[in-house]
């Protein structure tokens, strides 16, 4: 399956090699699977749990154990803190 992943702000640094040029997102192909959980994706991308705020699948807010399917577009945002 192939999905598109968009990482925001500080989360980018964990996947530097995956981004082409100035792009904000990259395509990710996962062999031998036709479904993967959001949770799994986060660990696959080496993003520490405590830095992840929340994520959307095709622009809709989702839970961590929601499945991602071929062709989905995932956005992952860092946690929000205020001062």
């Amino acid at each position, binding site marked *: 399956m192939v999905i598109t992943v968009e990482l*925001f*702000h*500080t989360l980018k640094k964990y996947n530097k090699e995956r981004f082409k040029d100035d792009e904000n997102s990259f395509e990710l192909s996962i062999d031998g699977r036709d479904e993967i959980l959001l949770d799994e994706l986060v660990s696959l991308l080496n993003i520490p749990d405590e*830095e992840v*705020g*929340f994520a*959307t699948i095709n*622009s809709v*807010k989702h*839970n*961590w*154990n929601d499945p991602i399917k071929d062709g989905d577009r995932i*956005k992952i*945002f*860092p*946690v*929000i*803190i*205020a*001062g």
Partner: protein
Amino acid sequence: MFYKDYIRVLNINLSTGRIRVDKRKDLRAYLGGVGVASKLLQENMNPDLPPLHEDQPIIFAIGAASSVFPVITKTVAMFVSPLTGELGESYAGGRLAFTMLHAGYDAIVITGKSQKPCYVTVTQTGVEIKDARAFWGMDSDKVGSYIRNREHGSGKRSIIRIGPAGENLCSYASVCVDTYRHFGRLGLGAVFGSKLMKAMQVTGDLPMPIPNFKDYFKTYSKLYKQVTETEVMAKYHDAGTPINVEPLSAMGGLPTRNLTSGTFEHAENISGEAFAKNNLIRKMACTGCPVGCIHIGQFRREFDHGYEYEAISVGYDYELIYALGSFLGVDNTDGVLYVIDAVERNGLDAMSCGVVLGWACEALERGIITEEQTILPLKMGDYVNLAKAVDYIAQGVNQLYTDMGKGVKHVAKKYGGYDFGMQIAGNEMPGYHTGYGSLVGALVGARHSHLCNAGYSYDQSNRDKELDKEKLVDYLISEEIERCLLNSLIICLFARKVYSRENIRMVLKCVGLDYTDETLTDIAKRILRTKLEIKKSLGFAIQDVKLPKRFFETPTTTGKLDQYMANEIAEEYARRCEEILAEEDESIKEFV
């Protein structure tokens, strides 16, 4: 004072012109910052008098380790709030803490009322109350530059001042600190106005030898390294707090159009990136902060026909963009800056102002108020008229605008629309509609701010889980207590992750205060207890708060909230407060 066993308090009485300096050993039991300020407020206020009575005090305090460690930058102001009628507590960065430290004062207490408009200058060698008649009516930017030009003297300075809104006693008038920071919330500006005090300048460069240089520098270097290596550093320096706009909107927690929604379809257009691309011209920091989260944006305004333009620069951050952007349906960066500029010039709190305007737009649309009253065809997104309305509020041009200047609770009670006047215990809502944490957190927080206990943060990390009432109450109360400690040093909350208990103890040790964790917890609880006592004496009870219905109609990040559940959580919190109030304060004896 560092390495001393007392707190040095400067007392200024504007009625009599008397100045007095106290060395208070007993105040060490409150560490510094919010602790010392709470105690001084309790001693000096009169719960039976209205908030703007001349006998009510203004307290400023710096923390126990202000300015000499990274990101320990803030000053606290405490007063009786003209907006809520109860505890007034507000924080500002800039240079104020730094200059107070170097002028040699831990706290300043201002009482009385001047006979004519005045400004106060505080230096290490003396205090003066000076004529400000010609400054009355000026916007806060202008008066800042006049004082800058008029006052000489060595050392760095900090100038804090009010605009027309404070003079006219708007209940949520702010005090501008060094152009880009503010004592924003809860109406300190009106308290200044009620004392006919336009401004205060603090300068200082007292020599302060470091007796234990090695330890100090080791600690400083360690903390500096930790701060500059945290996420906060990159995140809040690069795009600034506005990077929260997009994710909050996507997760449905960005209050939009008077909280009719938690998602703003134009969030991308007013995101941190959009501001950076369109308007950002400079970044700045409070004195002592390597992060530098202050973002200055510029926009162009036509002030006359015939291509007469001026370039205007104003500071922007998440709270401003929420309150004057998404909350009012303003969908472009220039428009948001346009309204921010009006709020700045007049010296109002942006969040309160935005929420009041949100109510006004909806009330007009529903026919609760008329265009005759609003003078302008106020509507969501029309930033030019919204900015004009800001002027009208500050000037109180008619009865409606005067009422709007008293806060959304007041105006909605009087004209109607209580259920969509978005306040919590009289304070206009902060920019987080994320769940029970944010809502109940602001309700039970001592000053009804999202920063009392960061309830939004709880919502975020527990989003997928079932609500656990006990756990939420535990979280809120322990966070509130821990923040009493952070705020007695006074650490900018962006760096709170860096300032673990271990680091706090290390820092305090460097300035001569060697405390155990236990003592620190006792102090933090003592501070909260003092604040709760103040609130009680001013008649506040959690049970009396009636939240507007809309909080329960518009889904949050964690789904729709239930009013009964919210009340239950709040009541449980109230019960815990009673426990804290009833606790015997044994350890205070160590200090007296």
